[in-house]
Structures are given as structure tokens and as C-alpha cells.
């Protein structure tokens, strides 16, 4: 069983409440930070841990914190990005729902390190019941002297507020989130200036994901060096993976980044294999925006090595043969699933969620959706496949924010790895309309872990 640092206490009844959290070691890391460490020492500890942002980009957290401008007399802000909206990703919801004090404690330590006295949790609007849970936790933390003025006699002041969004995936992008928090449309800002210099209300701001901020607590508890020893290479510590699609045990799992993709899919500890004895066809390992991989490239890299659940191994080979850890949204497709149809569903998502600010994204996402609809509905032409490839190339890298890339990559990877399935749709329009997807030839033979379990 892998090491657990975030969910190790998730099974304890009542851990959502202050008293139980405190009795089980809660706020010890905050106490350590406030009473025996300077803000710079906290940042140093996070740097030593090698923690990478858990929202998707994977940028080193301590380094991001060290970029924060500190002009005299200007407030600084920490914003917790809880706008979890990427298809396949539902891990932060779990943390907020079941371990709200872990997040509050992480926010307290991080705010102390950054010198922020006012912190906002920006949560997607659809998670409408979670703000009540967070606000109750905030009230209890206040009552017990972990928020407010002169926290635990340290001289540090902090207030945390929760703000609900109102339904816009783009608000997960940090500058769009800031715009939304300022009461505007979630249109991303051109960078530079980066939020670390001019963020919320033009003040220096750090935006971090829920899981990233929660991870600061175990880092302080066990020390940055110890945290860095967990995992492989630059994939240090633990990572939450939200697994879904065609698997026996969908859910949120904490992995210590030393296991293989095959073990994650087939072992009983994690996804428990594919339902009904079906075979694995493909997987999107890091949330809908990262490239889909066919089974053969998912389980082994192009070099024939076992693919591991680490940032580096998932990315091995770059986009032609690899994918990304992303936000850890792990979507599994069995042999009966249609890649064209799935790609259409993602194209429809990105078209719906484009903020409309940049023409390549606003127009291109809709164009891709329409072409994919034609192919899926049996009205496609062979030239449409090349057209799709051309459109996604014209979106990628040509927009203010990464939503354009996020919309382009799933289409590119689907064509790259499953071109013959697109061609089959074009050549078999009637069967495509009857939803007889036909092709199952991408499914690998039963992998080793599953075969061993079956014996």
C-alpha cells in the first residue's frame, strides 16, 4: 500500500469537524510554522519538498511563491483555486468535502509564508453545498484562534473568505479567476504582468490549487526533505488521482508516484480493472485536456519501458507518444467506446467553455465541434480529418490563455492515435449512425497485473 499524506485520516469519523481534526494532529503544522519558523523558512521548506502545483501545470510551488512581489504598504493576496471544472477531475471536491480543516490549515501556513492577511477560496458555483462546509470550518478555526487577529499569539492576522463562481470552466485559469473574483466576466488577462506582480485588484497575488495548498500541511509535518524522498525523481510526494470512466472502482485515490499505470488500473487497491471483463482501449491520464493514449502506449512508453504514474513517465516521448499528469483526472475507455464520439463530447465542452476573447479559440472550437458532429453522424468526408488537424494546429499556441491548447490537444491526439477509427466512421456512415463502433483492435491483451489477479 502506498504512503498516504493527504487522505491518511480521511477514514476517521467526524474528521470534517474541528475537534476531531485537532485531536488527530490537526493544526500541528500551523503551530510549528507560526511559533518556530519565519515566513521565508516555510517557503524554503516547500521548495525543498519539490512540490509541484497540483492543478495541472505542475509548476514548482515554492518557486512560484518566491516570485511574489513585496512592495511596501501594498497588500498581498493568496487565492485558493477551487474552480475544479476539467472533465475527469473531481479530487479537490473530496478534500473540501471531507477534510476542510486540512485546506484551512494549508491556507493558514501558505498565507503566513506569503504575508497575505486576506485569502479567498474561489470555488466553482456548481459545488453549491461545499461553501457551507468550508464556512463552518472557517468559523470553528476562528473560534479556536487559528484565524482572525494575532493567531496563536504570533502577531499574524488572517481572514479567509469563500466565493462561489457561477459556471465557467475558464475561471480555473488564474487570471480569469482573478477577473471573476473582481466581479467581472472570466476573461483571462494577457501576461505579463503576472499575478505575482499585479493580480487581485492589481496587488501581488498567488493562486494555488486546493490540493497544492493542502499538501503544505504534511510537508511541514514531515519536513521538506522527507517529502522529497517520496516518489520518483521530480515527481515528489503524493498525488491525488480522480479515476473514472470504464473502471470497476471509480473514485479519488492518493498515490505516492511510485506505481505503474498498469497497477493503478488493474490492482484492487485502486481502480480494480475494467468492468465486465472488457479490455482496455484507451485512457486520458490527466484530465480531458491532455492527450489520449491507446492502451499499448499507455501501459508502456515508446521505448518499451513500463509507464509509471509520475509527471516524467506519463510525459515520456512528448505528445507523439506520451501524455501528461495534468490535474490527475484519469478517464478510462474500454474496448466498446468510440473515440470519435468521445472526442466530440470534449470538443463540445471546450466550445461551450471558450470565453470568446480570442478568435482562434472562439471560432475554432465551434468549427471542430461541427466537423466532429458530421463525422460522428455519418456525414463526414475523408478530407474532414485533415481539416480537423489543420484547425487544431491553428488554435494551439494562438490564444491568450491555455484553453485554446486544451481544446486542440484532445483532437490532435485522437487523430494521431486513432486516425483509422475516424476513417472507419467516414467509410461506414450507416454503422456509425447505428452506434456500432466496431473497432476493438486497440485493446491490448490482458496486462500482467490483471492476468495475475485472475489466476
Amino acid at each position, binding site marked *: 500500500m502506498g504512503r498516504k499524506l493527504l487522505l491518511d485520516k480521511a477514514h476517521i469519523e467526524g474528521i470534517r469537524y474541528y475537534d476531531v481534526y485537532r485531536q488527530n494532529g490537526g493544526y500541528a503544522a500551523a503551530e510549528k510554522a507560526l511559533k518556530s519558523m519565519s515566513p521565508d523558512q516555510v517557503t524554503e521548506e516547500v521548495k525543498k519538498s519539490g512540490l509541484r502545483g497540483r492543478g495541472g501545470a505542475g509548476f514548482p510551488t515554492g518557486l512560484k511563491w518566491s516570485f511574489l512581489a513585496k512592495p511596501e504598504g501594498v*497588500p498581498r493576496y493568496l487565492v485558493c483555486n477551487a474552480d*475544479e*471544472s*476539467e*472533465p*475527469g*477531475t*473531481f479530487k479537490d*471536491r473530496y478534500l473540501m468535502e471531507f477534510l476542510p480543516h486540512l485546506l484551512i490549515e494549508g491556507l493558514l501556513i501558505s498565507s503566513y509564508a506569503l504575508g497575505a492577511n*486576506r485569502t479567498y477560496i474561489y470555488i*466553482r*458555483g*456548481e*459545488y*453549491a*453545498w461545499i461553501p457551507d462546509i468550508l464556512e463552518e470550518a472557517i468559523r470553528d478555526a476562528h473560534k479556536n484562534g487559528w484565524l482572525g487577529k494575532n493567531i496563536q499569539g504570533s502577531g499574524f492576522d488572517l481572514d479567509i*473568505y469563500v*466565493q*462561489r*463562481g*457561477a*459556471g*465557467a*470552466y475558464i475561471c480555473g485559469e488564474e487570471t480569469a479567476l482573478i477577473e*471573476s*473574483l*473582481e*466581479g*467581472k*466576466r*472570466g476573461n483571462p488577462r494577457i501576461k505579463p504582468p503576472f499575478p505575482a506582480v499585479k493580480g487581485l*485588484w492589481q496587488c501581488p497575488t498567488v493562486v494555488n490549487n486546493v490540493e497544492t495548498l493542502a499538501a503544505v500541511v504534511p510537508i511541514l509535518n514531515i519536513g521538506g526533505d522527507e517529502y522529497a524522498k517520496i516518489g520518483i525523481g521530480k515527481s515528489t510526494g503524493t498525488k491525488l488521482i*480522480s*479515476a*473514472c*470512466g*470504464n473502471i470497476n472502482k*471509480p*473514485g*479519488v485515490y492518493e498515490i505516492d508516484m511510485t506505481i505503474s499505470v498498469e497497477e493503478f488500473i488493474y490492482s484492487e487497491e485502486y481502480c480494480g480493472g475494467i468492468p465486465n471483463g472488457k479490455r482496455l482501449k484507451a485512457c486520458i491520464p490527466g484530465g*480531458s485536456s491532455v492527450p489520449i493514449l491507446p492502451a499499448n502506449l499507455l501501459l508502456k512508453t515508446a521505448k518499451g519501458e513500463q509507464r509509471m504514474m509520475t509527471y516524467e513517465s506519463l510525459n515520456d516521448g512528448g505528445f507523439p507518444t506520451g501524455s501528461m499528469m495534468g490535474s490527475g*483526472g484519469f*478517464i478510462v*475507455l474500454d474496448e466498446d*467506446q468510440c473515440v470519435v*464520439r*468521445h472526442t466530440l*463530447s*470534449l470538443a*463540445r*465542452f471546450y466550445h*461551450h*467553455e471558450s*470565453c470568446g476573447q480570442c478568435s482562434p479559440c472562439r471560432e475554432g472550437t465551434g468549427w471542430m465541434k461541427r466537423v466532429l458532429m458530421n463525422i460522428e453522424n455519418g456525414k463526414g468526408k475523408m478530407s474532414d480529418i485533415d481539416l480537423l488537424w489543420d484547425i487544431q494546429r491553428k488554435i494551439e499556441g494562438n490564444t491568450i490563455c491555455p484553453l485554446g491548447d486544451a481544446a486542440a490537444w484532445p483532437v490532435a491526439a485522437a487523430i494521431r492515435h486513432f486516425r483509422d477509427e475516424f476513417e472507419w466512421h467516414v467509410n461506414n456512415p450507416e454503422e456509425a449512425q447505428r452506434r456500432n463502433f466496431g473497432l476493438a483492435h486497440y485493446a491490448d491483451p490482458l496486462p500482467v497485473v490483471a492476468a495475475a489477479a485472475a489466476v
Partner: protein
Amino acid sequence: MAVQFSEEKLNKVKEIIARYPEGKQKSALIPVLHLAQESFGGWLSAETMDYVASLLQITSIEVYEVATFYSMYNLKPVGKYLFEVCQTGPCMLNGSDNIIAYIKEKLGIGNGETTPDGLFTLKTVECLGACGYAPMMQLGKFYKEHLTKEKVDQIIAECRAQAGN
């Protein structure tokens, strides 16, 4: 003015504005629009948006541009129970198409339509972050997950019972 928050709701508005630094009350717009939608029949009329603008001392157009951007604000009346069914990738892999088709058949309405008795509106939506519990829908403040036809029947019956029909 016909649109007017209760005293309790006005206090809530003041509390929301106090979350932000002085002079940054525009930041309260999104939460106050949520409050307005909940308070005034589940949707935002032009009159409601103008009222919110006056409360926050911003222009009406600033409210309109926000209200039209975010998918959770309804700009026309909706039924008492709004079924927002997720149709994105992971839900689709788990049969959301069938659930949507069943709701349409059961209620006799299409996407975006409301039943003649004003009880139910169906709206397909994009990813709600419940991919491990698919297929699912949002109903008011809560999620209804692992949907089956039987569960849909049960939800509809519960709504009808609650509405006294």
C-alpha cells in the same frame, strides 16, 4: 420598485460586500446575483439586474455582461425544479445520453424546455466535477449521482410530492 430584498437578505448583501477591501464592492456581484436568483423566482430579470446594480453602485451594463457570461444564471424563467444533466465525456461513457433521453420522454419536454405545469425544466450542462459518480445531474443545491431510470423516476416523484402535485 417591485424587486426588493428582505431585511435579512439586505444584511447578507452587506456581509458579502464586507468580504472585500473598501471600494471593491463590485467583487460582490457574483455572490449577490446568486442571492438575487434564489430570491426572485430562480432567474434574473432585467429589473432584478438593475436592482443589483443599484445596490452595488455599479452600472446596469456591468451586471448584464456578467449575468450573460456565466452558465448558472438563468435569463428567462425556469421550472420550480431545474434538472441540469451532465453530458460531458465521463458521464457520456456511463450512459448520460440514455438518462437525458429518458427524462425527455418521461417529462415530455426537450432540452431547455419547461413542463406546462411549470414544475420541471431540463437543461444539459457541461462537466459538473462528479465524473466518478456518473451519470449525474444537479438539482438545486445538490448533486444526484449514479443515475438510473429508476432513480430518475424516484427524483421526479419526490419533486412532485414536495410541490404538492
